[in-house]
């Protein structure tokens, strides 16, 4: 025994050294591309800088204060919050409904599954291109269909009307994102042991009761994954909005990410844009921190078992 111990220790030491060596590159990239830029953004947000000239002017918290007086900024914050609520409820709810329906064992299940999932695979700019065509006010798909069924009076200037544009975008995103939550829920439902469902059925539960009392609670791990990803997506939301409307008309569909891009690369006000992104980070933190806290409690609970 005694002769083995030092060899073992050396063995474990070299093992640890190799492991640490493996971590060098990922950690280095993380520090260069996450930590350093985040600190740098905080620094830039205190400056007045056009992104080109050599000198910056330190202006303290002025960027933050001025943003608080801008209706345009508040409108974007409000839009982000609306998107958050929508993404948590809309695609998640529809995805759950579709998964629950398909889980009953419909004929042609494979085809339905592919159809529901297809839009999720396409790029945001393709979503934008396709839905701009759907929403084209005179000869687009939506207006044409409404005319054919005699509801032509409901037709709108879908993307041109400030009061309609956000709902129009949400429709497109619903189409785009539902496939993801559908797939996660569907796989989750398939993982539920048949005995649980069978037992409830023998007890005389209706399909509706089985779903809400048995399946849905067992589906909770899938649900929190979907909700977490939706929340992060709502904070990051940029590409669909930018490619479909550029934030317009008249900033009506703007979210913080598109506003920040416009201020930085359209108006070359890097300090102000940095302040917007710091506000966005704070908003994202406020949304995601409770989620992380909840997740860590779950991890602790599962480790304790």
């Amino acid at each position, binding site marked *: 025994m005694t002769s083995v111990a030092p060899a073992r220790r050396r063995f474990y030491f070299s093992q640890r050294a190799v492991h640490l060596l493996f971590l060098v590159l990922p950690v280095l990239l993380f520090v260069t591309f996450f930590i350093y830029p985040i600190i740098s953004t905080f620094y830039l947000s205190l400056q007045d800088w056009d992104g080109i000239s050599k000198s910056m002017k330190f202006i303290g918290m002025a960027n933050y204060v001025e943003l608080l007086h801008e209706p345009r900024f508040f409108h974007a914050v409000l839009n982000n919050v609306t998107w958050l609520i929508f993404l948590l409820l809309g695609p998640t709810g529809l995805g759950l409904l579709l998964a629950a329906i398909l889980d009953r064992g419909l004929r042609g299940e494979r085809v339905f599954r592919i159809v529901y999932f297809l839009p999720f695979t396409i790029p945001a700019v393709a979503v934008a291109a396709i839905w701009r065509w759907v929403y084209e006010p005179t000869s687009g798909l939506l207006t044409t269909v409404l005319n054919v069924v005699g509801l032509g009076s409901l037709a709108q200037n879908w993307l041109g009307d400030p009061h309609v544009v956000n709902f129009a975008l949400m429709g497109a995103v619903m189409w785009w994102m539902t496939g993801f939550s559908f797939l996660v829920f569907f*796989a989750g439902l398939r993982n539920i042991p048949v005995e649980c469902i069978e037992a409830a059925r023998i007890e005389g539960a209706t399909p509706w009761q089985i779903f809400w009392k048995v399946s849905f609670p067992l589906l909770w791990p899938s649900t929190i994954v979907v909700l977490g990803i939706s929340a992060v997506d709502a904070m990051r939301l940029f590409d669909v909005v930018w490619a479909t409307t550029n934030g317009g008309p008249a900033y009506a569909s703007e979210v913080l990410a598109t506003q920040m891009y416009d201020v*930085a690369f359209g108006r070359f006000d890097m300090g102000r844009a940095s302040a917007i992104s710091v506000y966005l980070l704070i908003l994202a933190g406020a949304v995601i921190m409770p989620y992380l806290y909840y997740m860590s409690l779950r991890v602790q609970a599962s480790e304790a078992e």
Partner: protein
Amino acid sequence: MATRVSAGRVSAYFIAIVVAVIFLAPLVVATLTAFKSPREITQVLSFPTQLYLDNFVVAANQMGRSFLNSLAITIPAVIFSVVLGAIGGYPLAYMRGGSSRWIYFFLLTGMLVPFQIVQIPLFIFIRTIGLYDTIPGMWLTHTAYSVPFCTFFMRNFFASVPRSMYEAALIEGCGPFGYFWRLLLPASTSGLSALAIIQSRYIWNDLLFGITLTNGDEAQPATVAIAGFVSGVQVQYGPLMAATLVSVVPVMAAYLIFQKSFVRGLLGGAGK
């Protein structure tokens, strides 16, 4: 009882079919539009009377280069990011003690950060090191921002490989590096390929980094070219739909072919 059950089934079919039609309609219309001549294009619900391929010619002339760029960006960036995910995930799955847990959570926070917080310094940094508007610049950027997710994904995958295999290999005299290279990676092809599919969607579909870090024919990916086309004053929907169709096909095909392993990998990575 029997009638109630069948009523439930009928409404299930009804909802499933209605949603399927709504989901397919925009794709079908976009496909038809890509094959229509300008004269027919306003008749949204009609079929094209002839196969009009000029839209694809126009799209190829205006955006052909950007599609090649997208390929040149996506393929290496997917390989780099998956390899790096495996490299980072391995020690985090096998190291014992608090330090690996800290590094893990530290990397995880990167998955939750809105990229806007790094956008401007990234732009300045990439410009300073001379990689602005270059394809290697896009490789570097995509690889770096994939580190948190890829590491997370591969760590969870490796954690599901029985630890006894690792200990047996070490007793047999296989070093920790040899185990990674000769045993763990070959045993993880399903996880690696699932991650590769997720990453190809993510990188091929990216707009934010492309629009921030490229500025012209040299490196502009297809998504940026299409976005420029969409927001033009007079949108030519025929060529636009042709380009859109081409941009949709690669990732869609990959998902359809590898659907099973994607679902398995996703649940292994996120379901636990």
